[in-house]
């Protein structure tokens, strides 16, 4: 029986080689998924992931795990819908339990402009086969009886867009599941390896400088979340991204009372209850750009008061944890991904406050781009040069912060 108590090592410790077909900077969901699909779908296994901390230590392990496809523009809906479908079978594909849980997502309206907005969202979603309907106040109450329909006596709830498939999934498990399977297929994963420079020879990226020495690469993918401009500044070009902190917090565990995920655009807040009973609350990004992951008290105070306006029972709960992640925000709230002006250097970025749900679709598409050299139509709208061509993909209203 002794064997039962041995320590289980999930990830092999790989030694850093001198050269790989593909080097991926960043062991978040996007880097890990891209590596997995490179190996599984395209047989490209001489791949290294360089992660300066531990895998999932960035936004991937700090997000509020909302999965949904209720976006606004046709290009974005198509993309997130694909990702949503891939997430539905991901636990089976990777043989790793991810505690995916379908909750139904309410997007509340407390004002006339938001009623219009949410009605329009429902109609637009239906046009593209996404299950979103508009509910009046009575129906909102039926779907989520815990809501204070008077909005704390200040902001009465007038209606909502209801996206029944809206779900949550365990974020760490997504990172671990992709990492373990990618490694099993031959990808090497290096934690504690930081990229400190890029080697560029006549406009072509030939490798990366790291704290473990130079590593040559056929192609380099930057998938570093909020740190992306540190990489592009090394490469000597600028991109339309600014890094903002995003905070969230949980209460102590409470009996299961809240099935739904509830968001309010007017109150800039969203609330859900995790499977272990903690009530999870998220809200808007910090208004100033920063790389600091220190949480702030004004955020906690103002969010708590708005959350109590929706769910009075929260007033008696204590707050257990508060944390901060960094978001690579684009001007149009859509991702920024694909080839760059440096040959063989690619980006998976612009994931902002919305990129966790995008991991499978982005990973499979970036793998296809790296393997074939052709931009898959699914991600073509999110190319880096879209602002120069006046082809922004405006998603501010539906990006929310989850």
């Amino acid at each position, binding site marked *: 029986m002794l064997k039962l108590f041995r320590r289980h090592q999930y990830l092999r410790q790989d030694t850093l080689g001198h050269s790989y077909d593909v080097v991926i900077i960043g062991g978040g969901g996007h880097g890990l998924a891209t590596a997995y699909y490179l190996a599984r779908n395209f047989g490209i296994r001489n791949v290294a992931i360089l992660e300066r901390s531990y895998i999932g230590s960035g936004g991937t392990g700090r997000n509020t795990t909302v999965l949904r496809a209720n976006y606004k523009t046709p290009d974005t809906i198509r993309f997130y819908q694909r990702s949503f479908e891939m997430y539905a079978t991901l636990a089976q594909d990777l043989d790793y339990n991810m505690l995916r849980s379908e909750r139904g997502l309410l997007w509340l309206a407390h004002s006339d402009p938001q009623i219009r907005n949410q009605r329009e969202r429902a109609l637009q979603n239906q046009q593209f086969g996404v299950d979103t309907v508009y509910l009046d106040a009575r129906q909102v109450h039926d779907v989520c009886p815990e809501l204070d329909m008077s909005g704390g006596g200040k902001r009465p709830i007038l209606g909502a867009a209801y996206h029944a498939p809206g779900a949550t999934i365990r974020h760490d498990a997504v990172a671990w599941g992709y990492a373990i399977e990618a490694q099993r297929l031959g990808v090497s994963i290096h934690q504690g390896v930081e990229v400190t420079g890029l080697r560029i020879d006549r406009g072509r990226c030939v490798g990366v400088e790291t704290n473990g020495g130079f590593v040559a690469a056929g192609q380099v993918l930057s998938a570093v979340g909020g*740190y992306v*401009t*540190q990489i592009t*500044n090394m490469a000597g070009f*600028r*991109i*339309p*991204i*600014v*890094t903002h902190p995003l905070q969230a917090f949980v209460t102590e565990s409470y009996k299961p009372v809240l099935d739904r995920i509830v968001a309010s655009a007017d109150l800039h807040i969203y609330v859900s209850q995790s499977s272990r009973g903690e009530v999870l609350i998220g809200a808007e990004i910090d*208004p*100033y*750009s*920063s*790389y*600091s992951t*220190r949480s*702030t*008290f*004004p955020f906690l105070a*103002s969010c708590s008061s708005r959350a109590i306006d929706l769910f009075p029972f929260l007033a008696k709960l204590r707050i257990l944890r508060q944390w901060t992640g960094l978001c690579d925000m684009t*001007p149009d709230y859509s991702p920024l991904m694909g080839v760059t002006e440096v040959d063989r250097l690619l980006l998976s970025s612009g994931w902002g406050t919305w990129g966790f749900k995008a991991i499978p679709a982005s990973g499979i598409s970036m793998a296809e781009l790296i393997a074939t050299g052709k931009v898959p139509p699914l991600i073509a709208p999110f190319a880096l040069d879209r*602002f*120069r061509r006046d082809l922004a993909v405006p998603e501010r209203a539906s990006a929310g912060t989850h």
Partner: protein
Amino acid sequence: MALMIPCPNCGPRPYGEFWPSGELPEGGHAVDGDVDADYRRVWLRTNIAGEQRERWYHHAGCRRWFSLTRNTLTNAIHDVV
């Protein structure tokens, strides 16, 4: 802790009372009709991890603009004018 912004007129106040400009455009705000320069000014950012010169507007106080330098890694502020 809240980020405290040292307004030259009102003293240190919490960040919620202010609007930040963010990164200042390279070459200032002047528009000269050069499409390429306009593209760079309007869209592209350095998003530096380090010292950044910024303008802040104290909307819930003296309602005036001022300049400061902020370290985006630590949020430490100096050179306020």
